């Protein structure tokens, strides 16, 4: 009886979770394979891809499969630099998001229950307007004639510092990245912090922990799963983001995302664009793998 139920349960489980699993599998694995295959081919004469087999009567041109793009990637230090810079921007954005989001998430989690949903709504409210429009808004805010720029330069001037241009700089890119991704850090943190049992903080205080010790020994370690998932949700999209550096960055602020976009839409070198994508995917997998491994000792066994 119980066995039969279990079997029926298992079938039901697969019926429900099967389609989405299949969807993810097909639309993640298939494109990755296509991308891998593309990266091994030659670019076509006018963009796109060259045929694998040489057409009849072809005199010149390159056909078949090759590792040329990978050689190219590793032969020029420029690409490593752009990768490194992208990782630096992603890491900095993640850290700034974490520092800004943590107190906010804590505030929401410790507010009265009836206010929490409203506050969460406010956090996600920016999503109601188009992402590009919000980035363009930053262009105006950071622009040389903006009130903000004038104010910053007035303050700097008072200390005898020469005026600075905020827009089209790494600073502007970072501001844009943090602004766009902040909610992705707040939400997982809040979801985690909200579940903490307040009795634990009472217990810590009762056993002699001051406010800082209560945070550092109880709240922070318990929030690590939220910190890790929030960090992943910020770090990974920032790595691939091209719109923000495109709009807010200067000529030197090219990130991997821009590079890939240029290969496909500008240079029309699909194989090299695919190679860059593959390298990015590998790098992200390596980093998330490392993070998961590092997070392992803090992992809390589930009930």
């Amino acid at each position, binding site marked *: 009886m119980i066995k039969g139920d279990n079997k029926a349960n298992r079938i039901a489980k697969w019926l429900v979770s099967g389609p989405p699993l299949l969807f993810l599998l097909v639309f993640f694995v298939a494109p990755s394979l296509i991308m891998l295959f593309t990266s091994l081919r030659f670019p076509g004469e006018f963009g796109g891809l060259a045929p694998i087999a040489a057409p009849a009567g072809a005199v010149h041109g390159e056909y078949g499969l090759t590792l040329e793009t990978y050689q190219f990637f590793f032969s020029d230090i420029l690409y490593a630099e752009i990768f490194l810079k992208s990782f630096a921007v992603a890491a900095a954005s993640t850290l700034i998001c974490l520092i800004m989001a943590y107190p906010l998430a804590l505030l929401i989690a410790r507010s009265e229950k009836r206010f929490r949903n409203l506050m969460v709504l406010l956090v996600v409210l920016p999503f109601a307007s188009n992402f590009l429009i919000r980035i363009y808004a930053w262009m105006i805010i950071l622009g040389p004639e903006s009130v903000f720029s004038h104010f910053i330069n007035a303050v700097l001037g008072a200390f005898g510092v020469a005026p600075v241009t905020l827009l089209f700089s790494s600073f502007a890119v970072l501001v844009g990245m943090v602004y766009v991704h902040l909610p992705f850090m707040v939400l997982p943190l809040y979801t985690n912090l909200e579940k903490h*049992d307040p009795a*634990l903080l*009472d217990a810590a*205080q009762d*056993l*002699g922990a001051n406010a800082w*010790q209560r945070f550092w020994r109880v709240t922070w370690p318990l929030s690590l799963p939220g910190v890790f998932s929030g960090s992943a949700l910020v770090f990974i999209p920032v790595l691939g983001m091209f719109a923000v550096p495109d709009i807010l960055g200067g000529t030197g602020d090219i990130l991997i995302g821009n590079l890939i976009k240029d290969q496909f839409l500008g240079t029309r070198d699909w194989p090299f664009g695919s190679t860059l994508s593959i390298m990015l995917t590998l790098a992200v997998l390596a980093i998330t793998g490392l993070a998961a491994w590092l997070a392992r000792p803090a992992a809390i*066994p589930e*009930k």
Partner: protein
Amino acid sequence: MALLEIRNVTRCFGDFTAVDNVSISIEAGEFFTLLGPSGCGKTTLLRMIAGFDLPDAGQILLDGKDMFGTPPEKRPIHTVFQSYALFPHMTVADNIAFPLKMAGTTPDEISSRVREALDDVRLANFGNRFPQELSGGQKQRVAFARGLVNRPRLLLLDEPLGALDAKLREEMQIELINLQKERGVTFVFITHAQNEALALSHRIAVMNQGKVEQLDEPSRIYGFPRNRFVADFIGKISIMNAQVLEAAPAHLKLSVAGLGEVTSPTKENVKMGDTGVLAIRPEQVRISHHAEEVELKNHFIGKVQGFLYVGDVTTYIVELPNGARIEALLPNSAPGRAKFFEAGDPVAVSWRHDAGTFLND
């Protein structure tokens, strides 16, 4: 000087007075229990002793020192919480080490004290486990060990046995008594379970609506409840309206409407003409087939309304001629299958002249 002195403490939440002018003093080494129904103010009082809440009026003194300005983390008072509140991200050993770390104890001493504490609660091999991997009783013992390891002046226990099943609860009660005796730490225990309070405590304060109704030893609380609330709350008791006919130095003569004269032990501040209730415990009431067999002073005939067989004893509910119901407890001590009085049987109920208590209105 008492270890803990609660002096005229009052705490209000809006219009609601949670603790109303309560004064209690607790001696060092005592197992003291605050007993009362939920909402009686015992938890608020406990939180004020721990420092999580502050009195609106009155003082709480520990070793003669007013605790008002001392936050919970600075008070030499630890609490065992109802939910245990063990840190889920720390091992059992780290949980127990926590108060020692906070107190700045040296690592060497921490490890030896933790080992000692684990031995004390018979969890020597569980130091590396996480709380989630323990049973309810084991978690409970970790919570005790954590509360005691830093040798607090006072250990507060907030219904710590509430989540355990009956059998385990009894075991833990015995363990708790032993732990308290061995360590000599003063315990302030709060509970709504009267049998637990009776079994564990040296003294009990019965609380109701923010006030202390009676503060005494368990046997006196049970045997000589001071008022109707205490009588009703602690154990089972039958209650009948009564009026004092005669207040002699040796006994009281009461008149119970529709029943007649009843003799009960004398009591201070009771005089002729007082009205109130006669309260009598089921185990003091004898039940028999015929009135002629009874030689006790208080005896009446009645009719069995029903009974409750619980294995060791049977409780009979007997209706008296005046309509009042009285409970009588009969131990099932005869060998073989117990023979019962059946519902509808005419029986005689009786009790000694020094049983029962008269409680003024």
